[in-house]
C-alpha cells in the first residue's frame, strides 16, 4: 500500500486543478448569476446594474413568451424522452440477443452520437426540406409532401425525431451493458420453465435492468430540458415560435437583447424547475426501491 497516495495532502493536490476550474468556471458564475438576477442590468445601456429585488422574477411570472417557451420545452421532453428510451431499450435488447457481430451494430448505432450538433442539425434540416428533402422524396409515391419544419404542429416532433436519432446511442450503450450484466443462469431457468422470448424480456431482463433504465430516464429528462442547439440551428425557434425552447429564449434575452439581469432570473427559474423534476425522480425511484 502506498502511504503517500493515500495522504490527504496528495488528494488535495490531485483535486486542486479540477476544483479550481470548477470553482472559477461553474460555482462562481452560478452564484454570480444568482446575484445578477436581482439587478436590472442591461449591458446595452453602459450603466451600472440597478437593484430591483425580485422584480425580474415577478416579470418572468407575467412573461407569456417565457411561459410558452417552458411549455414548448415540456412538450419536447414529453415527446423525446419516451421515444428515446423505447428506441434505445429496443435496440439494446435486440443487439444483446444477437449471437454474433454485436460490436458492429453497437458501433453503427452509436455513430450518430459522435456527430457535432451543427453537423447533425444541418444534415436533418436538409432531410426535412419540404421540396427536395430525403423524407418527402421517400413519401412521394404516396403523394405526401409534409412541411416537416415549417408547420407549427410538425416542427417540434420533427426535431424530437432528429434528437432521438442523434442521442439514443448513449442510452443504448448503457442499457446494452446492463443487459449483458444479467446472469445467464436466470435465462436458463426461465427457458426450463418454458418462457418465450418476450416473457424472458418482460420478467427476467426488465426487472434486472430497471435501475439502469431509471438512470437513463433521468439523464434524458435532464438533457432534454436543456435542449437548445437543435431548434436553434434547424428552425431558429420558428415557425411562429413553435420550437422556441426556454434555453433559446434565455439566450436571446441575454445575448441578443443584453438584459443580463432578467436572463439570469429566467435561468434560475429553469434551473429550479429542472431541480424539482430531478427531486421528484429521486423520490419516485426511492419509493420504488422501498416497495421492492
Amino acid at each position: 500500500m502506498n502511504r503517500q497516495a493515500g495522504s490527504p495532502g496528495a488528494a488535495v493536490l490531485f483535486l486542486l486543478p479540477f476544483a479550481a476550474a470548477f470553482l472559477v468556471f461553474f460555482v462562481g458564475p452560478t452564484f454570480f448569476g444568482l446575484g445578477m438576477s436581482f439587478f436590472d442590468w442591461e449591458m446595452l445601456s453602459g450603466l451600472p446594474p440597478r437593484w430591483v429585488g425580485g422584480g425580474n422574477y415577478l416579470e418572468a411570472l407575467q412573461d407569456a413568451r417565457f411561459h410558452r417557451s417552458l411549455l414548448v420545452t415540456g412538450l419536447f421532453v414529453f415527446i423525446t424522452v419516451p421515444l428515446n428510451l423505447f428506441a434505445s431499450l429496443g435496440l439494446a435488447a435486440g443487439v444483446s440477443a444477437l449471437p454474433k457481430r454485436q460490436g458492429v451494430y453497437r458501433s453503427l448505432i452509436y455513430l450518430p452520437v459522435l456527430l457535432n450538433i451543427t453537423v447533425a442539425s444541418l444534415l436533418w434540416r436538409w432531410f426535412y426540406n419540404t421540396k427536395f428533402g430525403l423524407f418527402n422524396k421517400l413519401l412521394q409515391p404516396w403523394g405526401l409532401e409534409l412541411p416537416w419544419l415549417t408547420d407549427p404542429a410538425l416542427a417540434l416532433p420533427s426535431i424530437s425525431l432528429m434528437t432521438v436519432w442523434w442521442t439514443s446511442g448513449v442510452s443504448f450503450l448503457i442499457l446494452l451493458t446492463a443487459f449483458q450484466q444479467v446472469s445467464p443462469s436466470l435465462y436458463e431457468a426461465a427457458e426450463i420453465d418454458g418462457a418465450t422470448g418476450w416473457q424472458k424480456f418482460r420478467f427476467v431482463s426488465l426487472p434486472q435492468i430497471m435501475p439502469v433504465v431509471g438512470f437513463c430516464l433521468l439523464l434524458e429528462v435532464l438533457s432534454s430540458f436543456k435542449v437548445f442547439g437543435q431548434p436553434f440551428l434547424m428552425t431558429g425557434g420558428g415557425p411562429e415560435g413553435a420550437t422556441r425552447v426556454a434555453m433559446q429564449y434565455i439566450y436571446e434575452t441575454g445575448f441578443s437583447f443584453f438584459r443580463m439581469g432578467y436572463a439570469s432570473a429566467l435561468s434560475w427559474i429553469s434551473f429550479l424547475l429542472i431541480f424539482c423534476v430531478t427531486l421528484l425522480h429521486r423520490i419516485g425511484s426511492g419509493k420504488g426501491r422501498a416497495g421492492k
Partner: protein
Amino acid sequence: MLRNKGVWGWLVLALMVSGVFWIWSSPDFRASRKIPLNFWTGFTGPDGERMVDLIREFHRQNPDVEVSLQRIDWGVYYNKLFVAGLGGRSPEVFILHAGMMPRFASAGLMAEMDELLDTQSRAALDDLVPVIRPKLQWEGHQVAWPLDVHMLGLYCNLNLFRKAGWVDAVGHPKIPRNRAEFLEAGAALRKLSTPSREIWGFGIADPNLIALTSCYQFGGRLMSQDLLQPVLDSPENVRGLDFLRELVGKYHVAPPPESNDAWIGFRQGNIGMVMAGIWMLADVKGDHAFDFDVQPLPQLGNQAASFGSTHLMGLAPGLSDESREAGWRLIQFLSAHSLEWAKVGQLPARQSLLSSAEFRSLLPQANLASEIPHLVFTPGIPSLWEVQDEFYRAGEKVLRGTEPASTSLRLAQRKAEAVLERSRNRHSFAQGNR
C-alpha cells in the same frame, strides 16, 4: 554531476531569455515590427474572399501594418462583437450594419473619428450618397465610415419570362416596374405550371426584409418621425403586410412561404421572380447556365422604396495613436477601393464611384443605383433589435395566414411600446439618430 547539469540548463535558459529580450528591445527590431490590426467582419461568403484580396492589396501598399481578418457568421457576429467590446477586447477595426450602430455607439463601443478627419477625408465625406451621411454619426460625432450601400433587387429568371411569352416587341423579357405589371407577369409565369411541375410567378425569399419593403412602399415605417414611438400598427404597415399575403391568398402568384424555400425554388427554375438582397448576386453569377437579371424593385405600393442598409466600419475606443492611425488608414483604403468591393455585389457609397464609367459598366449592380434615393434604413435607435423582432413576428403570422395584419401588428405595437418604455425609464438614450 546531476546538479551541474541543472546549473547548465538554467544558464542556457537565462541566456536565451536575455537574447530574446535584447532582440525585442533593440530599436531596429521595434522599427521593423508591424502594427497589428484585428479586423472583424461577417463576410463569410464570396464577399469574404473579395475582402481577403483587398486586405492583401492593403498589405502590399502598407507594409508596416499587419491585418488579421476574422470572418464570423452574421448569426453570431454581433453577440461576439458586443461581448468582446464589453470585455475591453474589441477588434481595432470592425464592420457593422447601419441599424446596429446606435446599439454599439450608445454602449460606448465605438471611437469618435472627428479628430481623424483631414481635408481629404472630409472631401470623401461630402462625396458619400446623402442618404448614408446621417447614419455615420452618433450624438453629433462621426463614429463610422461606410464601406458600401446595399438593398433588395428584383431577380428574374429570364428563361421563364421568355417561355411565358412575357417579352417586349423585340423579344426581350419585360421586367415589371409597377404593381399591375408585376401581378400580370406573376400570373403569366404561373400559367407555365404543368401537372408534374409547379411554376410560381414570385417567391418570398427573405420574408423579413420583404415585409419591411412592402410596408415602406405603402408609406409605413417602424418608428415615428421623431423616433420616440413605434408605429408598427399604422394603416400603411397593415396594408403593406396585407398586400404580401394577398400575393399568396388572393392573386395566387406566390406559394405559401411556409412550404417553399423561395431562393432555392428560383435557382431550380420553379420561381420566376424573387426580391432578394444584392448580396445574393454571387450565388447566381457563378452559374453561367442560369439566365437571369437583377433590376430595381417594382413599385407595388404608392411609393418607390426598398429596405436599405450599409456596412459601416468602426474603430474600437481607447486605441493607441499608432493603432488608431493604422485602423483609419485601413478604413480609408477600403472606402477608396469600394469599386473592387462592388464586384461581389454591394454598391459603392461614394457618388464619384457610382457615376464612374467603370461602375456603370458593372452589371447588374449598376441597375440598382437608381434605387439609392428611395432606400429606407431601419431607424437608428439602440432598441432596434427588439422593435424589429416584434415586427418580424407579426409579419410571419400574416404571411402564413395565421392572423390578419391588423391583429398581429396591434400586438407587436403593444410589445414594442413596452420595450421603448423600459428603454426610456432606464436609459438616457432612448432617442436615436434619424
